[in-house]
């Protein structure tokens, strides 16, 4: 029977050394041994490198859970998850983390709402619209955003952005309404005009398309003007608030989102694009209906990475979120200070009693465990989405 020797590492683990005798390649016994030994060594090195990083994750998980579980033994779950009273240093202490969990959720969601549309549009622009040369210049510039240390972002948020919001908050917000709302409204009006006109009989519809779009545009203009004058009247008494950190976290998450989604869009094959053009699709149709769906798994990964970047950020929120353990009222009021899980862990660790292991100390680990579980869930979810998209794309 033919002996299988193609795989150099084939049977090393069992300790048997077969002479490597590929057809046409004859090695002496010593050379064969040397080759197998070096293959074995390489396998050991690579395996231990891979094992070390997964072991690190397991150890982190283990140690955090070891210090988090005593908290729930001491205080139970219900206070931690349902109360908004966070007074860890009082006697008796109160450990209601709901407001802090809400704070983390609010800033993460708002940062994502800022970074995801902007980041994906920027990636589409770079990948599909800009010429190759320009893209090569623009991408590193965006990636520089990721190289700025977070304490520098925090300092900017505290020293520049917070006073700016206090002094010119209303004006800035009303300008933001126009800058963000304008383009969105323009696209929506054209699309709505097209959709409405297609409801009419075909000839009348063709004629009515642009007048209808104009009608929608006029309505949108009035709505935006109302919104911006409402924003103009807002008084921001404190600039260290949820809006401030959401903006900064959004900017910090931006390079991750742009870079990963741009790579995903680039990875979509030329054949797909050319097939789409060959069928008579326009560039917009190709991008929206072919390239983006084909790249969706990568885009999901980009969004997840961006969200986790924002959720895990500590320094910026510790410096510029105001750190009030309070649920904003109403909950969408971004102009109130909030407190996040990460900032609480960083800020409270110093005086937390780790010699005897007080509830205050373990409460912080309970928060860390919560964060870890959320990011784990995010990872699993994005993995699932990516796998599903891959199966669909491969025509299964």
């Amino acid at each position, binding site marked *: 029977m033919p002996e299988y020797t193609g795989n150099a590492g084939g049977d090393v683990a069992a300790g048997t050394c077969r002479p490597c005798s590929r057809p046409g390649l004859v090695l002496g016994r010593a050379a064969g041994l040397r080759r197998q030994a070096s293959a074995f060594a390489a396998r050991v090195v690579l395996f231990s490198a891979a094992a070390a990083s997964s072991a690190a994750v397991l150890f982190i998980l283990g140690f955090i859970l070891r210090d988090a579980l005593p908290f729930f033994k001491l205080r139970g779950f219900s206070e931690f998850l349902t109360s*908004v009273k966070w*007074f*860890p*240093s*009082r006697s008796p202490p109160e450990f209601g983390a709901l*407001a802090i969990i809400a704070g983390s959720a609010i800033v993460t969601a708002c940062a994502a709402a800022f970074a995801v549309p902007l980041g994906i549009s920027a990636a589409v622009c770079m990948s599909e619209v800009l010429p190759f040369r320009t893209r090569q210049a623009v991408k590193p510039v965006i990636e520089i955003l990721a190289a700025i240390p977070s304490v520098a972002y925090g300092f900017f948020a*505290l*020293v520049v952005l*917070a*006073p700016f919001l*206090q002094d010119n908050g209303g004006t800035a917000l009303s300008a933001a309404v126009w800058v963000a709302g304008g383009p969105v409204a323009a696209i929506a009006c054209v699309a709505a005009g097209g959709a409405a006109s297609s409801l009419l009989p075909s000839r009348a519809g063709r004629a009515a398309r642009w007048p209808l779009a104009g009608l929608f545009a006029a309505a949108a203009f009035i709505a935006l003007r109302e919104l911006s004058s409402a924003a103009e009247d807002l008084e921001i*008494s*404190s*600039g*260290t608030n949820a809006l401030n950190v959401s903006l900064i976290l959004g900017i910090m998450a931006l390079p991750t989102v742009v870079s990963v989604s741009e790579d995903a869009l680039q990875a979509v094959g030329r054949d797909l694009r050319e097939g789409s053009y060959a069928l008579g699709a326009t560039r917009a149709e190709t991008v929206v209906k072919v390239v983006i769906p084909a790249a969706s798994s990568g885009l999901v990964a980009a969004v997840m990475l961006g969200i986790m970047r924002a959720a895990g950020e500590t320094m910026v929120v*510790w*410096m510029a979120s*105001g*750190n*009030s*353990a*309070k649920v904003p009222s109403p909950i969408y009021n971004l102009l*109130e*200070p909030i*407190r996040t899980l990460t900032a609480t862990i960083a*800020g*409270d*660790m*110093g*005086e*937390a*009693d*780790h*010699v*005897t292991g007080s509830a205050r100390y373990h409460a912080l680990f309970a928060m860390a465990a919560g964060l870890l579980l959320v990011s784990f869930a995010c990872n699993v979810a994005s993995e699932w989405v990516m796998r599903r998209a891959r199966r669909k794309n491969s025509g299964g």
Partner: protein
Amino acid sequence: MNGRRILLGALVVLLPVCATTGQEAGGRKAKIVVDGSTTVGPIAKAFAEFMMDRDQGVKITVAESGSGNGAKSLINGSCDVAAMSRFMKPEEFKAAVDKGVLPVAHAVAMDGLAVIVHPANPVKALTTAQIADIYTGGVSNWKDLGGPDVKIVIVSRDTNSGTYEAFEELVLRKRKMCEGVEYVGSSGAVRQRVQTTLGAIGYAGLGFVDRTVKALEVDGIAPDRDSVASGRYPVARPLFMFTNGYPKLGSALHSFVTLHLTKKGQEIIEAIGFVPMTDYR
């Protein structure tokens, strides 16, 4: 935080190692371990730096793990000096005596807290009761205190700091801070927030008060060195270092915990924003 402590400790240990390549001046060899309050920490670190610079054989490590942990370390025998921003509690004394440790208090400095507002705020003076009302949420607009119609932005140090502890004890007297209080991580950040925010009120050690903010009179007394040292200014407290028994005269430990009585020690204390216990001038 362990990482930070180890790093700090390593730095403090490594500094003299780098410096002692020549012969050892003074000839005194000793190792002092300080643990405890994050408020007293800067004093201990400045003292350690000065001592190690003067006596090349002395090695001092300073860890900042909180007053409570400092007391525990002294009781366990894992440190020589417990830096504490409060006096030892009766139960800590009891635990210490049970273990054969006799804590001796050395009051090294006074910590006076100035209550600061934006310079454009016309309010000049408040009573401790009014300040407590602001921080507990009873008063939320400056117009109720004789100021303009501006919402009060309440700024506090984080609950982790000794400064917070002192303020809570001396002004709030067991009442809870309200939910809307903004917490910041350093006294410099308190000043930064107050100097840029019209409606803000905050508190910080005397050393952090400069012309960009206005320090209020509290109960009619302006905060300054004399009013704090004499005990007239109400928002002030002593800071302590505890040792096991009174240290042997002439030992490095003795000169460490009595450094605050020397002219140099008082200059150091003043330079980092605290008030010396005695007047060297």
